[in-house]
């Protein structure tokens, strides 16, 4: 898709840290496009290059190579003054003056923002009304993330950058934040979100990209991404039969009386299997067929330990 009718566009961007001999390319040729009103998630383990990518789109850093555009034609660095009244951003962490209260912090941003919503309303949306007089340094990590989101959305931005918006939150806080994000989606806000939580990407994203070591390893909608990965058939087999008797093309594994067939051709193998069971009068106990999950796709590109890691750098 062309940059012109997009809200966020990255074309073969590279981000290089360091100079001289000690350089490191944290982002290596990333391209993606986010259409107006879409939520695009960058999913990846720590160090994948998500933050490094988002910062270029936010205009906090210029790409070493490649180009980024917002609202079709605007350059995040050169057109900063025109872009900022229409965007909101939440850094991965920090950014608060620790000796200000939550209310003073929102008040400060209201003074720095075109057409802000009222401070009390912003605090209320973030569920922080009862914490208004508490200093930021005494807020919990989750409360700080919610305060940050309240600031990022103070002026109804058209484009919103959320770098790990729910990192460190408890389940309740995470769901409340997802609710807020869905509300923003409902209002047509274009959102670029990074996360290392699969569930978050799966439940919020219209489009997502799995980032690994500075590159996009897979992208598309969730069904698009999992489509390329093997599906699973599983069922219990009566004792007189063994896995070797089954007429399927995929890999077959048997454990504790339960058979798992991993196959790239779910429909064909399922049909063959059911036909075989029918003709041999075999009951396949608790027969299930399911496509690959995002987790499986993620592990396939990011590695097993990568898919498991939670908090960190």
């Amino acid at each position, binding site marked *: 898709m062309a940059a012109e009718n997009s809200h966020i566009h990255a074309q073969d961007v590279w981000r290089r840290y360091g100079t001289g001999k000690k350089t490191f390319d944290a982002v290596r040729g990333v391209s993606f496009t986010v259409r107006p009103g879409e939520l695009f998630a960058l999913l990846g383990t720590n160090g994948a290059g998500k933050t490094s990518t988002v910062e270029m789109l*936010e205009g*906090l850093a210029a790409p070493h190579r490649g180009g980024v555009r917002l609202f079709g034609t605007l350059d995040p660095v050169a057109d900063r*003054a025109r872009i*900022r*009244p229409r*965007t909101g*951003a939440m*850094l991965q*962490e*920090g*950014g*608060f*003056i*620790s*000796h*200000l209260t939550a209310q*003073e912090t929102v008040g*400060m*941003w209201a*003074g*720095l*923002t*075109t057409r802000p919503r009222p401070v009390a309303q912003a605090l209320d949306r973030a569920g922080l009304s009862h914490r208004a007089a508490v200093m930021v340094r005494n807020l919990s990590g989750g409360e700080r993330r919610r305060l940050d989101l309240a600031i990022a959305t103070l002026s109804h931005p058209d484009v919103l*950058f959320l770098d790990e918006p729910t990192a460190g939150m408890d389940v309740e806080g995470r769901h409340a934040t997802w609710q807020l994000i869905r509300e923003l989606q409902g209002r047509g806000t274009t959102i670029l979100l990074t996360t290392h939580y699969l569930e978050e990407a799966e439940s919020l994203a219209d489009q997502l990209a799995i980032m690994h070591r500075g590159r996009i390893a897979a992208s598309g909608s969730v069904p698009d991404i999992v489509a390329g990965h093997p599906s699973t058939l599983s069922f219990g087999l009566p004792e007189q039969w063994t896995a070797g008797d089954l007429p399927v093309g995929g890999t077959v594994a048997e454990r504790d009386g339960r058979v798992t067939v991993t196959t790239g051709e779910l429909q064909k193998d399922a049909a063959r299997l059911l036909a075989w069971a029918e003709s041999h009068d075999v009951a396949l106990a608790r027969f299930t067929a399911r496509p690959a999950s995002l987790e499986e796709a993620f592990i396939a590109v990011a590695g097993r330990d990568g898919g498991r890691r939670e908090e960190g750098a």
Partner: protein
Amino acid sequence: MNSPTTQHMKTLFRIEWTLFHRIKSNYVFVVLVPAMLLFTMRSVQKQLPLREHGIEAGPLMVSTATGVLLIFSLYSSVTGLYVARREELVLKRLRTGEVADPVILAGGASMYVAICVTQIVVVAAVLSVMFGVMPRQPLAAAAGLLTGIALMTAMAATTAALCRTVESVLVATLPAIFVLPMISGVYIPREVLPDALGEALLFAPLSSTIDLMRSGWTGELTAPETLTRTALATAWTALFAWTATRRFRWEPRT
């Protein structure tokens, strides 16, 4: 007067004002430090052969106080402010918003500028009464004050660019705190030094400001001399501002 920039400046000023009042010991420093420095300086300068160089004590004290306050009250506070805000990622967070880069820096510094100007004005008024001297070249004094503030703020931004942590601010500001007043005629008037050295030190960063302030009360500078000094101070400011623009880091090193 209600452009976004004005609004941003006001907001950032107000925030620093709030924070300043949150730490009560700040009050003590604002009043006590200038007072103590003045008394110390007074006793030191009594030892200097001022009369044989034709230097009046009152105007000299005004220029000394201005230099000391610019360095201690403005320069070191603003350097600390920039580094602290950077380490907390506040500067980076502000850059995601609508405030322009120079306004982020100027807005935070403006509160300290206000405090420093107030201190200088009060001290100068007290000294004028004490020594029975009145300003003879208010324009020179104004030029001294303005160039001094601009120079110290630009120097603070440059120093902050060199600091890695809040802890290193102390070390990074040492040259300015110890060397600058020595070479710029803040503690010891340049006239008292050997002639060639004294004249060469006119080109030190804060010398012009000091000369301008003193002439504000003595009226000793001719119009061309006033202009030269204003130009010199402006050149220093431009140099530091240029360095800061190129070298300033908006986020901590990782």
